[in-house]
């Protein structure tokens, strides 16, 4: 593989708002460059987790190398680096972008620019990438490419007049995109003879090869036998194999040199040693300094995860450990709850990340989980001067020991058509948003800017946003540090007993409303039992809301069906199965899904 002409390499990514057709375009590019036969081509090749394909989102960045014979008769190597599409994975996106020299911006011909379009474009421009717009979905009846082109020029300020008008779904005009890539995206530079300097933009764990590190070689060359140093973690390993990415497979090659994108394996056992954003260099001939931009990603959202069947605790631990091999941003540590027994407090990048991990645990590891309400990390400033990072509401110190508390906030940008500005501002107000300003994108659309507490958006903000704008609002955010806030711990008492797994931290002003709704919700979820069950919400010793589950008075199968005992048995078995899904708290049986009910307080 030596002697690849740098000028024939194009490293690029595709950026887009969710649903604007990023993955479909990626599929077409792969298809048209002849890497795969049609038979091998499954819709959305790059999204290779079942879950990704089902949800139509990209979770892990994927990368593929194809060869394109251009109109000038030359063959070009395309390294297409797919990026995760969700704000939870913003850092991964930024590292993926850093591995590219240019970006294709896909914009929906009907919807135009959305909040994530902007966020991604700015991110790409931050990385000095040449952004090349493409207008997709021109087959839609509502497509208005002219409007979208001028929107791109006006709002983003990049030239879009000659943007290819395509339909990735139908395969229309994709060739124009390929030619544009050759002409518009710059070739990489860098000296193959310099000391090695390579950016890690992803890694996966493989049972046979150990950790497979995805990297972009900025300077120098790496091959089998090179002793590499991970500059942030200081791990040193000898390279076992280098190669590049086929579709869904790894193809070994001799060496990777400056300008190339590929993978490196070095019998590394844990992805934690290979952090995204870290720089790889030659341990024997190191580069002067690491590439910029590395940061350690920390979980933003925490929740408790418990096996529904207490005996599966060890299984849950094993499963979490396996997932962590592939996902360095997943964190967990053991915790116990009076109500739920033994489990783990797990940290995630965001709510989507949480949901994905939860689903994978349930599907791939066949675990039945009880998840407590997700929360954020609060900073508790104690009167004795200590600062405590609180991830589990149960650990909140006594109010007398607390001086004040801080909560994480985000800078949120919401793109919305003007008719929904009112309802969306109301929503942000309800969620304790601090209005920062509004920009009109054009006459019909505006960009609203708010500072919002993270704990107000982790549950159902996205759903509320969609429902109040009939699906038209889009949303993006970035972390914006901590702010002092009047927070209280809301406790839930079931039959006069505090249920630790139901406690949550909430702002003082919304505590009453939240407590009331929580009680109502629990009343629906907790089945009637032999005695009356009071459900109360309390702050400290003060009860702020109450509901009552009435006692069960009648539960009898009056008629038995002749000799057909099986029906009777089935009924009883169903009842017994229901009991199994209950958690005993004091005298009361609480169904597992009640522990998640705090998530659904806004269901109307």
């Amino acid at each position, binding site marked *: 593989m030596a002697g690849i002409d740098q000028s024939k390499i194009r490293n690029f990514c595709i950026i887009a708002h969710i649903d604007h057709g990023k993955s479909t375009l990626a599929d077409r590019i792969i298809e048209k460059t002849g890497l795969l036969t049609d038979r091998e081509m499954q819709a959305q090749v790059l999204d290779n987790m079942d879950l990704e394909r089902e949800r139509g989102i990209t979770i892990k960045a994927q990368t593929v190398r194809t060869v394109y014979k251009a109109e000038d008769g030359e063959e070009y190597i395309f390294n297409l680096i797919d990026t995760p599409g969700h704000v939870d994975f913003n850092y991964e996106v930024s590292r993926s972008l850093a591995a590219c020299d240019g970006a294709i911006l896909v914009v929906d011909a009907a919807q135009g620019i959305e909040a994530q379009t902007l966020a991604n474009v700015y991110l790409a421009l931050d990385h000095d990438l040449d952004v090349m717009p493409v207008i997709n979905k021109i087959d839609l009846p509502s497509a208005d490419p002219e409007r979208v082109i001028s929107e791109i020029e006006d709002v983003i300020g990049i030239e879009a007049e000659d943007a290819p008008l395509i339909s990735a779904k139908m395969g229309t005009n994709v060739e124009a995109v390929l030619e544009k890539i050759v002409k518009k995206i710059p070739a990489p530079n860098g000296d193959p003879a310099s000391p090695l300097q390579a950016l890690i933009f992803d890694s996966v764990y493989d049972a046979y090869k150990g950790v497979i590190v995805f990297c972009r070689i900025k300077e120098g060359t790496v091959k089998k036998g090179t002793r590499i140093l991970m500059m942030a973690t200081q791990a040193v390993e000898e390279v076992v194999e280098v190669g590049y990415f086929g579709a869904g497979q790894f193809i070994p090659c001799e060496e990777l040199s400056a300008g190339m994108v590929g993978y490196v394996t070095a019998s590394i056992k844990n992805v934690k040693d290979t952090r995204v954003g870290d720089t790889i260099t030659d341990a024997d001939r190191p580069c002067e300094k690491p590439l910029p931009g590395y940061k350690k990603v920390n979980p933003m959202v925490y929740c408790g995860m418990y096996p529904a069947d207490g005996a599966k605790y060890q299984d849950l631990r094993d499963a979490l450990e396996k997932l962590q091999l592939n996902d360095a941003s997943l964190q967990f540590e053991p915790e116990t709850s009076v109500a739920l027994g033994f489990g783990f407090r797990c940290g995630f990048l965001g709510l989507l990340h949480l949901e994905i991990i939860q689903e994978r645990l349930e599907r791939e590891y066949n675990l039945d989980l009880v998840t407590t309400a997700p929360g954020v990390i609060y900073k508790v400033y104690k009167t004795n001067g200590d600062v405590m990072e609180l991830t589990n509401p149960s650990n909140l110190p006594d109010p007398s020991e607390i001086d004040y508390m801080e909560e994480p906030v985000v800078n949120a940008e919401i793109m919305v058509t003007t008719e929904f500005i009112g309802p969306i501002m109301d929503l942000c107000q309800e969620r304790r948003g601090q209005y920062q300003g509004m920009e009109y994108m054009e006459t019909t659309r505006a960009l609203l800017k708010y500072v919002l507490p993270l704990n107000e958006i982790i549950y159902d903000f996205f759903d509320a946003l969609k429902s109040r704008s009939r699906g038209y609002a889009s949303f993006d955010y970035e972390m914006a540090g901590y702010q002092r806030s009047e927070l209280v711990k809301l406790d839930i008492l079931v039959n006069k007993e505090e249920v630790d797994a139901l406690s949550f931290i909430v702002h003082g002003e919304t505590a009453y409303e939240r407590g009331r709704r929580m009680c109502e919700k629990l009343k629906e979820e907790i089945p009637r039992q*032999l005695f009356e069950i009071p459900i109360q919400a309390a702050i400290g010793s003060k009860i702020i809301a109450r509901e009552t589950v009435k006692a*069960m*008075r*009648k*539960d*009898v*199968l*009056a*008629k*038995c*069906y*002749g*000799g*057909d*005992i*099986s029906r*009777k*048995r089935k*009924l*009883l*078995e169903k*009842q*017994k199965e229901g*009991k199994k899904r209950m958690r005993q708290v004091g005298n009361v049986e609480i169904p597992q899904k009640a522990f998640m009910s705090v998530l659904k307080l806004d269901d109307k």
Partner: protein
Amino acid sequence: MINKAMTEELELYLHIPFCLKKCSYCDFLSFQGNEAEREAYTEALLKEISAYKEFALEYEVTSVFLGGGTPSILNASQMERIMESLRQTFSIRKLGEITIEANPGTLNRDKLRAYRSMGINRLSMGLQSFKNEDLKCLGRIHTCEVFAENYEQARNAGFTNINIDLMSGIPYQTLQGWEENLRQAVKLAPEHISAYSLIIEEGTPFYRQKLTLPPEEEERAMYELTHNLLREHGYLQYEISNYAKPGYACRHNVGYWKRKNYLGLGLGAASLIREVRFSNTSDWTWYLEHSSDPWKIHSQTEALDEKKQMEEFMFLGLRLTEGIGRQDFIHAFHKNIEDVYKQPIDKYLSLGLLEAQNGRIFLTREGISLSNMVMSDFLL
């Protein structure tokens, strides 16, 4: 002939799956059928009965129950052939209980006399309510006037053991309305009263309708009233939904709760034979074609292991007000009931839903009302 001492007791259930019209709450296996289908079914049933000739040698039949559907829909000659065939195949104990279910409106004087002469000695009448508006709501075909006429005819024909089915908890029913029903029933002085409460079953017309049902508290009150009022008039509750004058409990049904052997004949009929449960096919065509070969029509065969036997022993036995006997448990499973069920027994004794007395464990009044909850805890 096999020595009589070698025989085991056996109950027979015959299913007649026809109804003039399906009631709005019914999810039993029944349909209208025409005369030709009824005749074909009778023939198939006769074939099935005689196929048990060998099997029958080892058993003595203690009771027969002709259930449905509406068995009284068959004409007298069809019923006669069925009874005749039963007697030829099985040895039926003298004075054994032979019940037929009948719906008012399908009975007349001649039919009732014919039943008597066939040896049918117990009549179970599906009245459900003395109020015509209730009957209409339930989708019943008869009026209470027709019932009164049939009832008198039955007495005149010589039936001295009659059951009346009554249903509580029907839409718009009030406690007072239910009380009037009970009072009218006791005035007629049947030997046995089955008082069910309406259960809305999936797949029935009622399931799809928005019904105004009596609130739970009222239903519970109806249930208590039933117990008290009937007791005042000499009816003892012996099972969750059954009340009888002394000596008139339905022996056949008690056999189900005590897990006696029973053989179900006819479409979809269920059996328990020597700890194996099975049901006949519910497929009409298959049944008609293969009824002469019972092994071909058996389905859902399940040999009960000890665990399942114990579970059934408990949840069926607890339906009876006398409950279960500790000695009976030891006799059946060679261990003490506490060895297996200490935890739920203690739990429900302390909650006051079970009571233990004289070597028996039974549901309290409160426990009967919540019996599903209690019984489900006896599944292992």
